[in-house]
């Protein structure tokens, strides 16, 4: 049969977002691929240049809508370094709690979407059901289920409501047996193994050549997790293991993400205990009131006051649910950042698509791309 190019997307069940995978095929075999991105490009880096430091947080929730708090955390660390502000310890613990709950929420969303791609319907319902418990927790202390706007330069917006930690423990106790259930549903299914084993293999050296990070890199046996390698916030104070697998295929990525959720529960138990035992301020005192206040009591005029900060560049990198995210914030002394640059892990993971798709069959593309965990919002920014 002659070769041809086909479009998988921008409207295709495999894409989970708006993007287009152009595929050159010969019969059923994939010869070449060319991802076309940009359908969700909103110019977040450009808009950030026109906004006050705290106003950028709103954009961070929308950068990745399944891991909003992780992106807030990334930006906040860089902005605080650029402005030389130190948050209080309790705020750092609250941020870690946000990030780990967000990791569970994001991985459950991935799990639900991914297993549906390979033809198992009921795990989708289980995954979404349990993700809702995490969203309920977010709602109880941030007020929102998706776009939280919880973190602030210098701390977080508010402390936890009474009774939150007990509720959080209940959710964690509920989740641990659920992970076993997920494993039984997937690893016990012949369909799962037939559609996932030995597919989308990307070796450790290829991962590093193409800048692939996160669960995809760890599924190739590389033990690299920024929470361990270069601990940010207070990750050096909590005890956990880095999830690795060595198949480098779709099944290995599934195993890594499942283990990561278990480790997140382990971290969260320690963090919640710490929060119970150490009340304190959640906002640094050195932050001007107009900057850190939850409802901006000084009004719009307050934001327009000319305030000078020492110039500087802030760089941060965190282990976001999809991989290694980085922010580069240039502060030129004004109330807006001069330039904000984000590195999206999905962007780098997708740029290597040719290496893990070529040679497989067209029907293998949905499980392979599912295992990459594409979030188009953060890729296109």
């Amino acid at each position: 049969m002659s070769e041809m190019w086909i479009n998988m997307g921008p409207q295709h069940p495999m894409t989970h977002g708006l993007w287009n995978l152009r595929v050159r095929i010969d019969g059923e075999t994939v010869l070449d691929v060319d991802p076309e991105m940009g359908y969700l490009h909103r110019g977040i880096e450009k808009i950030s240049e026109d906004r006050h430091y705290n106003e950028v947080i709103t954009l961070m929730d929308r950068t990745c809508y399944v891991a909003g708090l992780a992106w807030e955390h990334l930006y906040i660390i860089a902005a605080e370094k650029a402005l030389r502000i130190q948050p209080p310890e309790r705020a750092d613990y609250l941020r870690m709690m946000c990030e780990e709950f967000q990791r569970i929420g994001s991985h459950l969303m991935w799990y639900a979407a991914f297993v549906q791609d390979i033809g198992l319907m009921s795990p989708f319902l289980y995954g979404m059901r349990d993700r809702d418990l995490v969203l309920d927790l977010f709602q109880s202390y941030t007020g929102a289920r998706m776009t939280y706007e919880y973190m602030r330069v210098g701390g977080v917006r508010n402390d936890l409501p009474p009774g939150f930690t007990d509720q959080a423990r209940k959710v964690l106790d509920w989740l641990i047996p659920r992970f076993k259930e997920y494993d039984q549903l997937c690893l016990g299914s012949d369909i799962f193994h037939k559609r996932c084993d030995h597919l989308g293999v990307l070796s450790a050296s290829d991962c590093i050549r193409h800048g692939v990070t996160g669960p995809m890199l760890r599924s190739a046996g590389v033990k690299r997790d920024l929470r361990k390698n270069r601990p940010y916030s207070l990750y050096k104070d909590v005890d956990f293991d880095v999830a690795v697998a060595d198949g480098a295929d779709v099944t290995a990525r599934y195993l890594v993400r499942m283990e990561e959720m278990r480790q997140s529960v382990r971290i969260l138990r320690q963090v919640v205990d710490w929060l119970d035992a150490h009340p304190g301020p959640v906002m640094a005192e050195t932050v001007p009131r107009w900057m850190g206040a939850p409802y901006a009591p000084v009004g719009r005029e307050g934001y327009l006051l000319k305030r000078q900060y020492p110039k500087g560049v802030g760089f941060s990198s965190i282990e976001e649910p999809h991989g290694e995210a980085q922010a580069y914030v240039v502060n030129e002394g004004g109330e807006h950042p001069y330039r904000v640059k984000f590195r999206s892990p999905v962007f780098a993971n997708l740029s290597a698509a040719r290496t893990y798709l070529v040679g497989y069959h067209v029907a293998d593309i949905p499980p392979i791309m599912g295992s990459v965990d594409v979030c188009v919002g953060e890729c296109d920014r």
Partner: protein
Amino acid sequence: MLPADLEQALAPKLGARLVGVEPFEGMAGRVRFRREAALDLFRTVREDLGFTHLSMVGGIDWVDHREVFYVVWSDEANQYLVLSTDLPADDAHVESASGVWPSANWHERETWEMVDVTFDHHPDLRHLLVPDGYVFHPLLRSFKLHEPEELEVKSRHV
């Protein structure tokens, strides 16, 4: 690895093409280089110093000149390093890093369309995030969010 160690390792290979090594919070340092040194520097940093992983490439428009920066990572040293070069605004081009780190490919495509910096010998310099034929470079300071009409008159492409 400290800025002084980096300077010691890089100076003999690059000579006057190395502008200097500065300290940078959270990183091994910031290497400033002239664009003629680009390929030699990339190879030295990757092969001799062990920075095997290129995380991102970005550009900054400083109005009178443009800056391109590269963030690289070494597993052995467990450290980041930022490389940066200043380019004249009317002739902004630098050698592509994608021959040394293939991961630079998409990052350079993005920088090219957003900040109008050309990467010489790039294998595939096409639009990535904005449509083909889009004549503006949104991350230049001259691209104003609130005055799109004015922009059309000022753009050098129109």
